[in-house]
C-alpha cells in the first residue's frame, strides 16, 4: 500500500511538471544470469562515465546525471518491470543491451515519447529515422557488422571470395537471426556459399554444430553469439582445430572473457567492432583519478579497459554528448526526454570532439540526421593476442556495403510502418 502511494505520488509529481533536479539515465543492466559476463562490464562502464562527468565536470551543463540501475537478467518480463518502474523518474534515454527487450520497448517508448538508443544491437531497420522517430542505433548496426566481416574477407582474399564456404553460427533468437538476410544478399552478390547453424539459448550445447563444421570444412566461421555461447564456441573451435584467424565474431562475441577460458588456443580469433579497444586513452586516467581512487567505481572496478567496459563507456559518452547538444539546441539545462531526442538526432561526433574528451579515435566520426539514425556504419576488425592477453584493432574503421544494407533497411522499416500505420517523418 505504501508503495502504491509512493508510485501514485510519483505519477502526480510527473504530471505536475518537469521540476527534476537531475538528468536521469536508467541502466537496464544484467549482472546475473547466463549473460552476466557481458552485462557486468558494460554496466560498469556506463555508470562510471556518468560518475566521471559528475565528479570532474560537475554534471552535464551544470546538472548532475543520475543513473538508476535496474537488474533485468536479460529477461524480457523483468525488462518491462524495469522500464515501467524507471520511466516515471524522468528517464531521458533507454539502453537495454538486449535485442529482446528492445523489441518490446520500441512501441512503448514511442508511445511515451522517450528515446531509445540501441548501439550495435536491437532492430536494425530502426536506422531509418523516417519511420522510427525515437529509436537510434548509431554508430553501427548488425547489418553493418555482417557486411563489415564480408568486406574484410574480400580485402584479405584480394577481392574475390567466390566459391568460399562461410558458416554462420548464431544464437537462435531475434538477435542471432538479424544478420541472416544480409548475409544471404551478400552471398548472392559475391558468390560465396552460406550455411547457417543455430545454437539454442543459452548456448552451452554446441557439439553437433561443431561436428557439422568439422565435416563441412567451411573456409570461415562467422559467429553471432552472446554470453556463455561465445566461450563454448571458441573452446569447441579449438577442440576441432579450426584455424582461429578464420573464425570471426560480431562485436558481441569479442571480449576478454570470451577468449580467456580457451587460453593460448584462442590466439588469432577475430571480431568486428565499432569502437576502439584497450586502455591507452587519456579518459582512463581521469576515470582512475575521479572515480576509482575516490572509491566510486561501479561494480568491483576490475573491468576497466575491457572491450565491453569501453563499449558501455562509449554508450554513456554518446548519451552525455547528445544531452549537451540538446541543452544547446533548447537553451535549457534541465532537458526533457523530447529534447534529448532532438539532441540525439542532431548529434555530431567528429574526431576533434572525441579527442577533446580524452578519447582520440575511440570510434568512427559520424553525424546523425533526421533520416539516418544509424550513422555511417563504419566498422573495424580486432584480433585477440593470447600471449599479451589483449585485443588490438587490426584494420581501420571501414565503409560497409550500403548498396546492400540500405534497401534491406528500407524494406524492413516499410513493413513496420505499414503494420503500425506510421506516416513518414523528415519531409
Amino acid at each position, binding site marked *: 500500500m505504501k508503495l502504491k502511494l509512493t508510485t501514485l505520488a510519483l505519477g502526480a509529481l510527473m504530471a505536475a511538471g518537469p521540476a527534476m533536479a537531475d538528468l536521469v539515465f536508467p541502466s537496464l543492466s544484467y549482472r546475473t544470469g547466463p549473460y552476466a559476463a557481458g552485462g557486468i562490464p558494460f554496466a560498469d562502464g556506463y555508470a562510471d562515465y556518468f560518475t566521471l562527468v559528475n565528479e570532474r565536470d560537475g554534471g552535464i551543463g551544470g546538472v548532475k546525471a543520475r543513473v538508476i540501475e535496474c*537488474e533485468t537478467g536479460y529477461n524480457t518480463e523483468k525488462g*518491462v*518491470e524495469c522500464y515501467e518502474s524507471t520511466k516515471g523518474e524522468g528517464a531521458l534515454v533507454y539502453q537495454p543491451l538486449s535485442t529482446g527487450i528492445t523489441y518490446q520497448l520500441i512501441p512503448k517508448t514511442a508511445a511515451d515519447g522517450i528515446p531509445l538508443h540501441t548501439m550495435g544491437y536491437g*532492430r536494425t531497420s530502426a536506422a531509418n529515422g523516417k519511420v522510427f522517430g525515437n529509436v537510434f542505433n548509431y554508430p553501427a548496426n548488425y547489418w553493418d557488422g555482417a557486411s563489415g566481416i564480408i568486406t574484410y574477407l574480400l580485402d584479405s582474399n584480394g577481392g574475390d571470395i567466390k566459391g568460399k564456404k562461410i558458416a554462420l553460427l548464431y544464437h537462435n533468437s531475434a538477435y542471432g*537471426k538479424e544478420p541472416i538476410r544480409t548475409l544471404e544478399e551478400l552471398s548472392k552478390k559475391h558468390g560465396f556459399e552460406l550455411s547457417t547453424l543455430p545454437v539454442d539459448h543459452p548456448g552451452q550445447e554446441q557439439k553437433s554444430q561443431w561436428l557439422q563444421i568439422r565435416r563441412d570444412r567451411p573456409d570461415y566461421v562467422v559467429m553471432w553469439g552472446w554470453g556463455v555461447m561465445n566461450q563454448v564456441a571458441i573452446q569447441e573451435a579449438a577442440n576441432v582445430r579450426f584455424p582461429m584467424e578464420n573464425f570471426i565474431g560480431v562485436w558481441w562475441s569479442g571480449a576478454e572473457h570470451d577468449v580467456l577460458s580457451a587460453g593460448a588456443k584462442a590466439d588469432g580469433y577475430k571480431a568486428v567492432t565499432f569502437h576502439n579497444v584497450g586502455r591507452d586513452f587519456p579518459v582512463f586516467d581521469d576515470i582512475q583519478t575521479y572515480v576509482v581512487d575516490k572509491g566510486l567505481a561501479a*561494480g568491483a572496478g576490475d573491468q576497466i579497459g575491457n572491450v565491453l567496459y569501453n563499449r558501455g563507456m562509449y554508450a554513456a559518452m554518446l548519451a552525455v554528448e547528445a544531452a549537451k547538444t540538446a541543452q544547446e539546441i533548447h537553451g535549457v539545462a534541465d532537458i526533457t526526454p523530447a529534447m534529448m531526442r532532438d539532441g540525439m538526432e542532431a548529434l555530431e561526433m567528429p574526431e576533434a570532439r572525441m579527442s577533446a574528451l580524452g578519447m582520440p579515435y575511440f570510434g568512427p566520426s559520424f553525424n546523425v540526421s533526421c533520416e539516418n539514425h544509424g550513422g555511417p556504419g563504419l566498422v573495424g576488425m580486432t584480433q585477440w593476442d593470447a600471449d599479451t592477453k589483449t585485443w588490438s584493432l587490426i584494420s581501420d574503421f571501414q565503409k560497409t556495403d550500403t548498396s546492400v544494407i540500405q534497401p534491406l533497411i528500407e524494406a524492413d522499416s516499410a513493413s513496420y510502418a505499414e503494420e503500425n500505420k506510421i506516416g513518414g517523418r523528415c519531409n
Partner: protein
Amino acid sequence: MFYREAGDFKVSYQDDSQTFPIKFDRYRYYAVLAVAFLVIPFVINDYWANAILLPFLIYSIAAIGLNILVGYCGQVSLGTGGFMAVGAYAVYKLMTAFPEVSMFIHVLLAGGITALVCVAFGLPSLRIKGFYLAVATLAAQFFLVWLFNRVPWFYNYSASGQINAPERDVFGIVITGPNAASWATYFFCLIFLTLCAIVARNLTRGTTGRTWMAIRDMDIAAEIIGVNPLKAKLTAFAVSGFFIGISGALFFAVYLGAVEVGEAFGINKSFLVLFMVIIGGLGSIFGSFAGAAFLVLLPVVLKVIGVDMMGWPTDIVAHFQLVIVGALIVFFLIVEPHGLAQLWRVAKEKLRLWPFPH
C-alpha cells in the same frame, strides 16, 4: 466467530452446494470482486498494471489450467511453456489475418486451438503415467518451441523471428499495442480470469471433475466403477489446454507485446507455472491464485525492499532473490506440503473455532 455456519440456514440443495456456503465467506468473495472490478481500474497506473497485476492475472489463468491437469486429474505436465506458446502464436496469426475481428474472440479461439494441440499431446497419457508422461510432455515443450522457431509461417516471415502484437481493440477500446490504457488491459485480463475461474470451479465440482479426481486417485479403480479413462484424461487435457492457451495469448498480446519463443516460452516457464501450482496447492482453485501471487509478487517486493528502500546493489538483490524464493519454497513445502491453499484452509478452521479452540 468468523466463518461460522450457525444461523446460516439453507432451504434448498442449490444453496447448500454453492461455492461459498458460509455467508461471511460469500460476502468476502463479493467484496474482492467489487474491489477488482470497481475500484482497481480507477486507481491503476502503468507500473501497477504492467509490472504486477497483468502478470498476476495471466499467470493465475495458466496456473488454473495446469492445476486442472496436474492437481485434479493427476497427469504431470512439463509442457506448459510450449502450450502457452501455441496460444501466443495462434492469437498472433489470428490478429494479423483478421484485424477487424474483436480481440475477445481471437483470445477464445487461441484457447480452442491450444486445447486441440494439448489433446494431441495428451494422447500418450492413455498408455504412460507419472514420470514417463512428464517426459512425453517435456518433448511437447521442446518440439513446440523448435517448431515456432523453425517455421517462418508462424512469425509471418519477419526477419528476426519475433512476433509483435499490432494494435487491436474490443468495442473500440484499444487492448493491445503501446497505446492501450492500463485500465483497459487490466480489465480485459480480469474478465478472462474471472470467467476461467468460475468455469474451472464448476467443472471441478461436477461430474467431469469427479471423474478427473477418480482417475487421479486410482485409475484402475475408477475404470472398474465405470469412468472412461480416455474421455476423462482427454477432457482434462482439453480444458487445461484451453486455459493455458488463453493465458499464453494474453501473455503475448496484452502483457509483453513482443515475444521471442525460446526466451518467453522456454522450459523455465513450464517449471514456473508448475511451481505456482505446487506452492499454491494441488487441486485447489484458490491455490492457483495464491501460487501465482506468491511467485509474481515476491521478486518485485524483494526488489523494492532491497534496491529502492535499502539501496543495495542490484546484483546482490537479484542473487538474494533467488536464495530467498528458493528457501521459502523449501520452507513452505516442509511446513505445509499441501501448499498455501491448505494454510488458508487451516486458518479458516482456526477462525471458525475461535475464541474457543478445543
